[in-house]
């Protein structure tokens, strides 16, 4: 029973990493949102399995929260934002995609090596997935760095939060409820504020390219 659960958790962890890489190499904004939704779904599945395997009822609550927020509400908000901003163009990465992927694999190796001694200390069923969670966080960071437009950066930020949540569940059976609720609200509010912010950027510069913000500097 517990071996099946840990295998399932490993599978979902691998799926999260796969989706993080897919997001890193994706050029289209809409597909990026779909991938983000899928990543949220994988997170919900892994958290539910973890809750069932370790008999921790508060993890069910955490999974439900993720489902509502990451799979339903945020993608809906993003879709609406994309529709209202009428952005359907291809994402322009600052680095070309193969280079990004190569740097990504270096990050994965780095994360795996970094997490190995930490996970040796943990007693959780899913301790070996800590490296994957860390790799997801770093890959999302990388995505935020290599994209020039505002919406992919926001999606990168949200994916970063996915990775953090997964790290928390895999290393310590989840954060206290208050912290989790706080983070969820933060992400939601952050999303709303960033949405408003994007409208402002477009109003000001007629584009969502973040590099235009450089013009705001006073010399």
């Amino acid at each position, binding site marked *: 029973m517990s071996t099946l659960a840990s*295998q399932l958790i490993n599978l979902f962890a691998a799926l999260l*990493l796969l989706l993080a890489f897919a997001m890193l*190499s994706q050029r289209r904004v809409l597909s990026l949102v779909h991938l983000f939704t899928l990543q949220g779904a994988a997170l919900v599945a892994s958290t539910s399995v973890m809750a069932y395997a370790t008999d921790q009822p508060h993890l069910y609550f955490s999974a439900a929260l993720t489902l509502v927020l990451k799979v339903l509400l945020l993608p809906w908000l993003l879709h609406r934002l994309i529709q209202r901003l009428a952005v359907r163009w291809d994402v322009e990465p600052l680095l070309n995609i*193969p280079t990004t*992927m190569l740097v990504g694999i270096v990050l*994965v190796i780095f994360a795996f090596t970094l997490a*190995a001694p930490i996970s040796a200390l943990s007693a959780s069923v899913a301790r070996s997935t800590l490296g994957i969670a860390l790799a997801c966080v770093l890959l999302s960071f990388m995505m935020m760095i290599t994209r020039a437009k505002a919406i992919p950066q926001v999606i990168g930020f949200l994916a970063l939060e996915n990775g953090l949540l997964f790290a928390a569940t895999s290393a310590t059976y989840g954060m206290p409820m208050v912290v989790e609720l706080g983070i969820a609200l933060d992400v939601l509010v952050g999303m709303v504020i960033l949405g408003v912010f994007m409208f402002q950027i477009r109003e000001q510069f007629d584009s969502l390219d973040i590099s235009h913000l450089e013009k705001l500097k006073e010399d």
Partner: protein
Amino acid sequence: MGAALNWSGLLSQLLEIALAVLGAPLLTGWVNQCRAWLQNKSAPPLLLPYRTLHKLFNKESVVATHASPLFRATPYVVFGCMALACAVVPSLSTDLPLASAADAIALVGLFAVARVFIALGAFDIGTAFGTLGARREMLVGFLAEPALLMVLFTSFLISGSTSLATIVENLAGRELAIYPALAFAGVAFTMVSLAENARVPVDNPATHLELTMIHEAMILEYSGRHLALIEWAASLKLFAYSCIGLALFFPWGVARAGAPLDLFLALPVLIVKLALGGALLALIETASAKMRIFRVPEFLAGAFLLAVIGMLVHLLLGA
């Protein structure tokens, strides 16, 4: 393995070669039919590839005056390589006397030999299209091969052997376990097979007209029985790749050594698996658009990285 040449092994080996050589065009026909259904076209008959082969074998083969013997030899070499590849891959039974002749790494080499010959044959006449196709084929090949090897290495690590027959025995014999590494390897393998078999995101198998074609550009100069052999070899390659995929990721239902009666069960199981796989291939081909040739290296680099990550995940999770 010393006394492997017993009658049941020989029988299953012969049966497997016969099934591959005779059944491969059927798989091609099935994929084409599924694709036509999905695209709302009226489907070509299932047996159309056989009729095409029959027609081509009865036609005269025209060879350019400057063609060297290499050009004439290429169809036979390519067909031989593909038939041997199909013989080595355990599709019906793992009790194959020939399987000890080539492990999975040698199998990749076998595909490489076929590729080099078909590219040289295309260069041989010196037409613009042939040269162009051969260069593109080598571009795709040199990127797809390491990715394929990485996929194979992942399954070698999991099952502890480089022989496909042993891999199938090990994976099918164990109790059911989920290997996250195989998920990565599976995605990478699908991408590599699409590229290697000249399928839609990389090449379009249904055109002789586009400037972007790869495989068809190389075989434009062939006609008659030469063309028939090359088309047949292309079907065999698709069959071999499908069987490698099934062997690595869905190894259940293959007959073991010492149980020749299992062959009766293995055959329908294989047919069902291939039919599902063919339908899936048609679905992928319909759902995706052909990419620019300069996007292909990116696509295959993605496949390579996925395969490498699969290996890393296997080492990390230790599953």
